């Protein structure tokens, strides 16, 4: 199982900032309130990351894994 990455759907993100409150280990906010994602999501905070994805008011967060190499 490879590492998860938190990806932002930028046009959908409206800078509510819940992700940074729920997952300060991975997300901080820039000067305009938009998330800055710091590195991949470790196993310890994976559950928190999943809650942050669910909590986003605009559903702008996704947990992704590196795609398998295309044939």
């Amino acid at each position, binding site marked *: 199982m490879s590492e998860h990455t938190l*990806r*932002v*759907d*930028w*046009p*959908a*993100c*409206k*800078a509510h900032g819940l992700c940074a409150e729920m997952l300060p280990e991975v997300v901080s906010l*820039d*000067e*305009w*309130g*938009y998330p*800055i994602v710091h590195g991949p999501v470790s196993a310890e905070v994976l559950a928190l990351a999943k809650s942050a994805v669910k909590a986003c008011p605009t559903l702008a967060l*996704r947990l*992704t894994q590196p*795609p398998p190499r*295309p044939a």
Partner: protein
Amino acid sequence: MTLTTETTTLRPMVRNEVGLDPVVSQGPALLAGIAHGPGLAAHRGRLGPAPTPAADELVQLSRDVDLRGRGGAGFPAAIKLASAQRRRAVVVVNASEGEPASRKDAALMTLAPHVVLDGAAAVAHALGTREVHVVVPSELPSIRVGVEKALRERSAAGERLKVTIHDAAPRFVAGQAQAVLQLLAGKENLPVTAWQPEAVSGHKGRPTLLSNAETFAHLGHLARVGSSGYAALGTADEPGTTLLTLRGDGWDPEVREVAFGTPLADVLTAEEMAQPLLLGGYHGTWLKPAQLQGLTVSRIGIAAAGATLGAGVMLPLVEGWCPLVRTEALVEYLAGQSAGRCGPCLNGLPALAEALRDLVHRGGPVGRVEELCGLVVRRGACAHPDGTARLVASMLKVFPEEVDSHALGGCRGGRVEGSR
């Protein structure tokens, strides 16, 4: 809104407001037949029927000559073709050319539409589809007229493709792949987040071969002449030719097709070789005059010099202009071209333009410019913020003496270290 006193009154032109048509010269491959006009009869008379290789064959040919996409990113055409080689594929010819300093696709579509459409037909045949979309720039309506005429000629000659023409919005980011897919879907022509490459899941979730118009022209030419015929021009590492737009936003724009390996000194004038060069367009990178010596038209060689060939846009600095003032004007334009949908771009690019204006005209801190460059990169649905940051970062890297001089409130005009 604040009023500012600017240290220079010279405002370099950013966009070709007057819409000057570029001078297009006859080229060695794609533009070889332009003297015979854009019609199908002349095209077929000169070259004969268009070959339709099988998918595996076309992939192999593309691999043999290492054909790269000509939209700017230089992605290998063979990989894209192979990824889209699945059931119910769709072919999209992107001739929208959102970059105002690029005119090569407009030249190709106007003067040699069948060279592009032969490529599109070859790709459609190879992928086993009849569905082709052609995206044209709405600000140049003559291109749509020309493509419609070319398509009528082809269907009268018995070609059975289902081609739809779409008009791209007149803005910088409208030609970005995801924005084009939105346009095809009947939505606003703006970038959205891509969760998968369009070759895997593109138009209506189908595998979509979306490439720049020039890329299709090369595929058609390659299918016709084979890999050894294609490699008769160019170098061993980079076979074939490429289209260049010179001074695309200036008073004497020019489109030229040259073989890879052509010395830059054969493309630019001696005066231009003594000036800094912005390569790759408004999302591009600067090179100093000293770096231009011995350089050839080569994706690999230009990358080794720390720049990008991109979509072949070359903008020599006009003598007497300051590269910082020119960059600042471009960034202001680019900030205005943000679709305004992604927060970091919507807020970051105007802030970056302001910080750069502050640096260039009022000796403001370079640190703020660098900080904002870092804040916008990889934080948007498309690469518009990344390209803008690349241009600014290149300016800081290539012209440190000018940056220092502006920080002290001076401007050395066009006098750049390494010129003359």
